[in-house]
């Protein structure tokens, strides 16, 4: 995938439109996106109905075209949205205007949430205009300090996204602080194992390089200086980071200092979830919807 524009175009070309619930939807910022959103999905709006209707009118959007479920309370609005996912009535869940902690506690709940039997992870997708391609960083939001087993699941989640994007042989850099194995640094050990699993085709056609430090992942020259040879160097599709501290700051530095558009999505559950992050541009938010569309159950069958 070369750009967010091509991602959005791909999502718009789909034969079916997945249903997406926005909860709570009384958020003028998100409602203002509806003209673009409806080119890819059928939205269901949950929240304070009167407020939603007023905001839609203010945004110049035709109120009659949308299914609106009236819920005054934020917690109930989230519960209703999760139930819609459970009953297969919607295929995408988007966080509206609500505190991250409340939203994540309810949506990620091990019993009642959308990921009861799986590992959820967040992918930051960045549009690297200089390179002319998009890359992914994961996990950038959810898993505090993933174990090797969790990293395997996080990588598998990312590979599902790569497949939906049409990347046939995704190149994965399993990042660590060093490019060689140091028994005192767990990230180097985990990355080495993941790389070996890749060699044995345990991740399908994905090519996994690791451990790689960032310079060996992105620069052939640096890699040569360090005498590291990896097929993924300078052509990485997925950066698998060792924990959320590394992932979050890596993604935000690229986005803010590198001025790269960044879209985020939570995967691994019953439906893709679009979180409401700070620092999201209008274009990136639409790209998030497009990405969720490509990952939705109906569209997965098209891949």
């Amino acid at each position, binding site marked *: 995938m070369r750009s967010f524009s091509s991602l959005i175009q791909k999502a718009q070309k789909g034969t079916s439109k997945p249903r997406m619930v926005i909860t709570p939807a009384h958020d003028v910022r998100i409602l203002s996106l509806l003209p673009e959103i409806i080119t890819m999905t059928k939205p269901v709006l949950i929240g304070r109905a009167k407020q939603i209707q007023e905001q839609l009118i203010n945004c110049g959007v035709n109120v009659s075209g949308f299914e609106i479920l009236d819920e005054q309370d934020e917690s109930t609005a989230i519960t209703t949205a999760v139930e819609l996912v459970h009953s297969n009535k919607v295929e995408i869940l988007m966080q509206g205007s609500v505190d991250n902690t409340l939203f994540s506690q309810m949506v990620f709940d091990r019993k009642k949430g959308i990921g009861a039997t799986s590992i959820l992870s967040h992918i930051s997708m960045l549009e690297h205009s200089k390179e002319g391609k998009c890359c992914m960083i994961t996990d950038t939001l959810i898993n505090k300090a993933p174990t090797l087993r969790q990293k395997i699941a996080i990588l598998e989640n990312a590979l599902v996204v790569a497949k939906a994007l049409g990347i046939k042989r995704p190149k994965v850099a399993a990042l660590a602080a060093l490019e060689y194995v140091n028994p005192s640094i767990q990230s180097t050990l985990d990355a080495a194992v993941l790389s070996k699993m890749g060699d044995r085709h345990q991740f399908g056609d994905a090519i996994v390089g690791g451990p790689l430090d*960032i310079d060996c992942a992105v620069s052939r020259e640096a890699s040569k200086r360090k005498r590291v040879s990896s097929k993924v160097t300078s052509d990485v599709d997925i950066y698998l980071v060792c924990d959320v501290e590394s992932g979050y700051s890596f993604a935000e530095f690229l986005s803010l200092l*590198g001025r790269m558009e960044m879209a985020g999505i939570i995967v691994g559950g019953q439906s893709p979830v679009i979180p409401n992050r700070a620092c999201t541009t209008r274009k990136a938010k639409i790209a998030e919807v497009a990405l969720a569309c490509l990952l939705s159950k109906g569209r997965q069958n098209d891949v």
Partner: protein
Amino acid sequence: MIEDFNDIDALASQRKPMGLVALAADEEEFLRTVKQACERGYIQPCIIGDSEKLRRRADHIEFDLSNVAIIEEKEPQAIADKGIDMLFSQDAYIPMKGHIPTAYVYRAIIRKERSIGGKDTISVNTLWDIPGVSHLVSITDTGVSIHPDYETKRRIINDAVDLMHILGYNRPKVAVLSAYNGFTDVLDSFIEAKRLQDEAQRGSFGECDLIPETSLTDILAGTRGAFFEFDPAALEKTPHVLVVPHLDAGNILSKLDFILDVTRRSLVMTSKGPVIIPSRSDTHKVIVGEVALGVVVARLLWGTN
């Protein structure tokens, strides 16, 4: 105040060359660094290492060693120990790590610090020159502590603040980074950041401000009230010091110059002065800049001509 690396480069060559001791410079990029730093008038070099190898390499790059002091030594820890001794004695040499593993140099520094009752821990400050930002930004610790605890973070902040004071920033702004944003349980890094901010309010870190924001997003992008739009002017809000949660994060962030339009130079501050620790992937062009930084910091610290 030193605003960028152009200032550093100009200052480095303004006065008489400073003593630099290169620890195993018998590899081409390191030897080219020494050669170029000499030509620019930054340094008067001494090299500790394998003299035979050194002369062969020097011939290859046409570097005349007649004005270079050479101390014969092949064992890496002994090389590091001798070089760090020269910093801690009255010789006033700036050590630069060459073709030996960093661990030997760190070990030599820590032993020496302990022997004089100096610092308990050391840290690497990676300075960034970011276009559009009128001050240098230090990312720290990017090289030593794998998982710094609260006490270690205190020392890391003290080190960074001291360095920024030396560079002329009277009251640097410091952000202690954390990925916590409500989607995970509270992270230790966030709890520590809040404790450190409280401590800073009581004046524990001297002349600096620990800002309440714990991520670049909070600092530059603000809240979720509206869609974000890039504002180049907002970059100026980047703090002088960014304290990373751990080594894995520090290593990624500090080397983003391979992707971003920023320039990187790193050093370790000991009780006696700077030690230059280039990355093994750096070319001599990058390392010469680090030498210039070391020279300027040492000169400001030692008050030498």
